[in-house]
């Protein structure tokens, strides 16, 4: 099969699976236990925290969660609650993942905050200037993703956050770096950084929030005092160890691997453009949205599936299910309704891209859409 839906999820690597298994069957202690078995687990946990905190240059703590969504929730709600006395205004972008947008909209509906949502340009990039100018005297939190999960577009997070910190050092900055990990450096000066395990060949059900030193958030999940009292519950060691292994693997030799991926991505891009499709992809090439107007996303996806090529359908055939990201970019309906997303990983080989292009060509012909 030709799996080109890595932005949705990735296959767990053998090394990560082994790490999980060891934590399940061998070193299975509870890090909070005082005996040797527990101490061993606590050491392993510390090691994992170190590995992840090494992804950013500032001193930070790492909190492991049940995934990227929980990390986002902890970051947003935690920061908003902690900043309650300083203000109630939050700035975010229109292209954030639902975990960020829905959460902020829910909090807005409760009357707890007022929300400003900044739109991107047609290229899917939110201008740093637009974010900075949306920040007010009462802004307590800014959330801006690093790489968009539909277009792959890299957002100017470092630039925007640096400017914001200059004027309002108390304003908390959060970046959802779920799709950025392993593709680019996630060291962009954010106070809070969300990560997810299953996007980098780790298992589903594990994520992390990197919290810079001095940044205050209140916990969401309460109970025991684990993880600095910020996320109660016995630490999910199997997932954590697998995640740590995955992070180590994906960040080693990152540049060379990504060069290879870029090459494959360019191959795909060329093939798509040759067929008259519109293509949106970020500089790294991992994620690409392609649209062949006239070909409904789901139908195209199913035609590709017949050739064992797996991609994401940008829009669902069912009524009212359009991508909020493409909509925010101001794309026309016929483009949005025909968008599919392919996303590559280190597992992707040339044959996958060739199969994709061949199948796409076949589908375009079948739909009578060849130029």
């Amino acid at each position: 099969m030709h799996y080109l839906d890595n932005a949705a999820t990735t296959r767990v690597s053998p090394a990560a699976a082994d790490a999980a298994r060891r934590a399940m069957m061998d070193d299975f202690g509870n890090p909070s236990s005082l005996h040797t078995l527990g101490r061993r687990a606590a050491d392993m946990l510390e090691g994992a925290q170190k590995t992840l905190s090494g992804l950013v240059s500032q001193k930070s703590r790492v909190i492991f969660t049940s995934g990227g969504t929980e990390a986002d929730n902890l970051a947003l709600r935690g920061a908003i609650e902690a900043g309650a006395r300083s203000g109630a205004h939050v700035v975010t972008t229109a292209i954030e993942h639902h975990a960020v947008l829905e959460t902020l909209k829910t909090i807005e509906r409760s009357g707890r905050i007022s929300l400003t949502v900044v739109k991107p340009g047609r290229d899917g990039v939110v201008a740093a200037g637009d974010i900075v100018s949306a920040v007010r005297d009462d802004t307590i939190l800014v959330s801006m993703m690093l790489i968009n999960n539909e277009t792959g577009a890299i957002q100017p997070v470092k630039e925007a956050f640096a400017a914001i910190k200059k004027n309002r050092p108390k304003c908390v900055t959060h970046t959802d770096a779920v799709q950025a990990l392993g593709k680019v450096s996630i060291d962009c000066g954010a106070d809070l950084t969300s990560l997810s395990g299953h996007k980098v060949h780790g298992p589903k059900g594990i994520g992390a929030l990197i919290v810079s030193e001095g940044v205050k958030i209140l916990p969401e999940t309460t109970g025991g005092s684990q993880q600095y009292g910020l996320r109660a519950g016995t630490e999910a060691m199997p997932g954590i160890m697998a995640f740590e292994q995955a992070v180590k693997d994906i960040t080693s030799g990152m540049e060379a691997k990504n060069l290879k991926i870029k090459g494959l991505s360019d191959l795909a891009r060329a093939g798509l453009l040759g067929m008259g499709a519109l293509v949106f992809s970020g500089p790294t090439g991992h994620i690409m949205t392609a649209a062949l107007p006239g070909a409904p996303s789901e139908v195209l996806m199913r035609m590709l599936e017949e050739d064992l090529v797996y991609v994401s359908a940008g829009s669902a055939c069912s009524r009212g299910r359009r991508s909020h990201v493409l909509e925010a970019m101001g794309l026309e309906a016929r483009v949005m309704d025909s968008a599919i997303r392919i996303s590559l990983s280190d597992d992707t080989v040339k044959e996958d891209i060739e199969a994709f292009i061949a199948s796409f060509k076949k589908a375009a012909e079948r739909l009578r859409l060849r130029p």
Partner: protein
Amino acid sequence: MKEIILLKCGEMVLKGLNRSRFEAKLNANIKRRLKPLGDFKLRFAQSTYFVEPADGADTDSAFEALKSVFGISTLSRAFVCEKEFAAVCACIEENFGEVLEKASSFKVEAKRADKKFPMKSPEIMSEAGAFVLERHPRLKVDVKRPEVTVYVEIRDEYAYVHCGRIEGAGGLPVGTAGRATLLISGGIDSPVAGYMMAKRGLELNAVHFFSYPYTSPQARKKVETLAELVSNYAGRMPLHCVMFTEIQEAIRDKVEPELFTLVMRRFMMRIAEKLALSSNSGALITGESLGQVASQTMEALHVTGSAATIPVFRPLIGMDKEEIVKIARKIGTFETSILPYEDCCTVFTPKHPAIHPRLERILEAEQGLDIEALEKKAIESVETII
């Protein structure tokens, strides 16, 4: 004291010479419906069915199941007792004492099928009424609009006491009117059409046209679920799934967009008719209603209907959407019908469909298609789910 289910038959009792055939069908249908629920003895006497559960039989489920059997006009759960007045009173008190205690008014209705019983019906009613009043002094008798009515039926072997009848599914027993083929889609209308015709005694089989990869597997699954829901009323209904993709693509290639839907529906009618004839079905059933969508204007219905040579039943033809939705909710298909999986891909849906088509024009358009070959292939692709 034994609890049994009493079923009264409706229209069927008027059927004169055909009556035994109808009874036999209803008998068989009831037996089939109750089979998975345990052992039940069925007796038919004086226009009433007596359904007696054996030990361990699931009477509650049986009662529920019988609510959707066509041919039954009312159902009630009754208690059996000896044909002695004292026994009848004891039965009333034991089973309905609580209900009567909580009520403010009641009356007793008695029927005496056994004319040899010593008390006449009015006497039974007043004596039993007095018995109840004695035990429930706060109760009042109200013969016009009582809160609770206790029914006493004295029959040949036993007496039966029950507290009311509920409405059954009505209609005629499935199978007494023959067999027909339902064109079923994932929409609200066609399952309701199927229900309505089964209600008139038609045994059904269904045809569904899907066009993978233009339509999704979820859309097909949705139709399978709807077919199952309809069969709760219609009994066993084989579902024939026809691969319609090639025909859709041929139409798209050879016919002008305005006529897509009409030509498509004519193909569906012809294929459905072929399947109908091979299963001894004498008519087609559709969920068409006048004026709902462009393909359902009078002219459009003429165009699509002419493709069939056997009768086409359109039970919804004169109904409003709201009325149809009401039935869909009643039979439990509405929630599934509104799941958002499209039956027909936008690729094959014309932006400006012909609203007042002329048959000649469509016949001309069909000239460019190898109808026989396409239909043959489609029929060969049929997958039947029972």
